[in-house]
């Protein structure tokens, strides 16, 4: 590749620093002599470590301090109604550690105790009901793993390549194992006979926070797989993720996953709340907007190499790793291109994809040190193939804000430094 592919000075410096650090972490290559890490007695092999009474609830080791949520100040007017990003570039597998799983609040993360918690079911039901937290724990539970992706994930990238890192371009997502009660169970406790024909009925769901984040969900979905969840990844929800109870709406845009859930109302029409009119509607090029774009379509991203994860080990074996997901069901296949989409190889799935959940893919390859234009392309069980950004823009223009599931390109140069780019 020619001159135009050279990285900016800033990126180059960052990449060089990473490479220098990489040699410290060290790959096993021919040494001048015996390795003192082996031949000299190390402290940890002689002295004792910390006791079991040291850390009742642990945090990651200090060496992993860069694996944290980050925010982008210029995106929003206030950090109270804002977003931060999961460090997906540094994670592997599919389960997102709760402590670094992204947050999106509209009036901040509130502190709501189980004792203070109440859930109301009202509207077109036979008996409007109030549940306490303890009531919810007495109903039959289910466990499911699902992704929660913000509708705006990758939204800053509609008009071009903007943020340099998978965390920022694709990190408004997390994937957890939820424990909870199906929403249908609660609706049946309240009785749906009064609603009559359920085909044209809705549930309006809202949170206990000041923003309320009210959204309308068609009854068919409410009775299908929506969960009223109180555990995630084995423990209680984090405060910032809706403690003690949130809605889980599999495959659908994250905004509908109402946190601190306080009320479910059966209605005969969509409420047309702020979050489904002013926001979470997608403007086309002609000024007309789509509403009720609930499902998150099939999408993927290579998490390593990526701008925050340069190649530091030189030529030879290279693991290309990434995530794929679809709101329509299982991921059945992921293709990877190293030449910007001219040729594709089918990657290996870490394990068979769960429905509406993150799926890990790997392409184990041999890097000859040539520049690469890395792309991944997800395919789901409906046969839907993740589109390019140009395909999306042809249909929608550049002002949709939400639902950007385009194929991402990383340019990797001879140094192993990666950059967010668009290609023809």
């Amino acid at each position: 590749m020619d001159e135009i592919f050279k990285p900016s000075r800033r990126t180059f410096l960052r990449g060089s620093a990473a490479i220098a650090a990489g040699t410290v972490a060290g790959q096993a290559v021919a040494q001048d002599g015996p390795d003192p890490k082996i031949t000299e007695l190390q402290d940890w092999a002689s002295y004792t470590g910390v006791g079991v009474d040291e850390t009742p609830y642990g945090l990651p080791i200090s060496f992993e301090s860069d694996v944290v949520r980050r925010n982008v100040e210029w995106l929003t007017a206030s950090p109270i109604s804002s977003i931060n990003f999961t460090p997906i570039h540094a994670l592997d597998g599919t389960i997102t550690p709760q402590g670094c799983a992204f947050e999106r609040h509209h009036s901040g993360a509130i502190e709501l105790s189980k004792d203070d918690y109440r859930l109301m079911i009202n509207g077109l039901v036979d008996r409007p009901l109030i549940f306490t937290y303890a009531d919810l724990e007495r109903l039959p539970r289910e466990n499911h793993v699902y992704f929660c992706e913000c509708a705006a994930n990758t939204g800053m990238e509609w008009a071009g390549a903007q943020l340099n890192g998978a965390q920022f371009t694709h990190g408004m997502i997390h994937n957890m194992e939820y424990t909870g009660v199906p929403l249908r169970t609660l609706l049946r406790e309240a009785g749906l006979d009064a609603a009559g024909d359920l085909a044209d009925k809705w549930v309006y769901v809202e949170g206990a926070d000041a923003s309320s984040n009210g959204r309308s969900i068609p009854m068919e979905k409410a009775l299908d797989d929506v969960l009223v969840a109180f555990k995630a990844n084995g423990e209680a929800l984090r405060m910032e993720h809706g403690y003690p109870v949130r809605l889980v709406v599999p495959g659908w845009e994250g905004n509908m996953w109402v946190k601190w859930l306080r009320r479910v109302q059966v209605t005969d029409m969509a409420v047309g709340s702020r979050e489904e009119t002013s926001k979470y509607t997608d403007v086309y090029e002609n000024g007309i907007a789509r509403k009720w774009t609930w499902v998150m379509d099939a999408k993927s991203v290579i998490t390593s190499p990526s701008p925050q994860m340069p190649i530091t080990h030189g030529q030879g074996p290279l693991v290309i790793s990434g995530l794929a997901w679809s709101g329509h069901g299982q991921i059945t296949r992921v293709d990877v291109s190293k030449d910007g989409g001219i040729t594709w190889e089918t990657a290996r799935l870490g394990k068979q994809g769960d429905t509406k959940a993150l799926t890990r893919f790997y392409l184990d390859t041999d890097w000859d040190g040539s520049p690469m234009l890395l792309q991944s392309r997800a395919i789901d069980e409906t046969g839907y193939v993740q589109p390019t950004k140009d395909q999306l823009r042809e249909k929608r223009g550049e002002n949709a804000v939400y639902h950007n599931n385009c194929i991402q390109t990383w340019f990797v140069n001879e140094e192993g430094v990666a950059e967010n780019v668009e290609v023809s």
Partner: protein
Amino acid sequence: VIEGTYGLGRVAFDEEIAAWDVDVLPDGRGLPEGRGDVFTGEEVFVDKCASCHGDFAEGVGNWPVLAGGFDTLANRDPVKTVGSYWPYLSTAWDYINRSMPFGEAGTLTPDETYAIVAYLLYSNNMVDDDFELSHENFTEVEMYNADGFVVDDRPELEYAEWRTEPCMENCKESVEITMRATFLDVTPDEDVEAA
């Protein structure tokens, strides 16, 4: 215990439902009785809203613009306001009543909310300065972009086309980089943040 249920939960009191069920539907259902005019609304707005949204609802700094932007939705940078974009007036009443002012939500009286919404209509040149909004005339207000929305049509316009076996080899003749994030340089600097 009613057959087919677990008999958990207890019946909600009317007062409890009234306290929490305050949403307003596009057809006006849910509106409480009340009224407020443009002049009153301007006073309330300047007192409680203008520090973020501007005296004329034009927005301050990065805070949302609530007025203007008509006929910009097909532009490169659309200005989506209550006037130019919102399809229902009920949404404005409901959202302001429930979630504004930011940081002091739920403190407005119904009459104050009617007045603020009347002032927003005036700021958007949708009513005259002597206009009074009430639960009685609420649904007579016509919104500029009421017909500006279509239900998700991805199944027809996109899915049919994109559910095909994709190309694997020789998929294009050449590839060029057309845009680069490092030219914009707006990504937070990790070295600084990590320190």
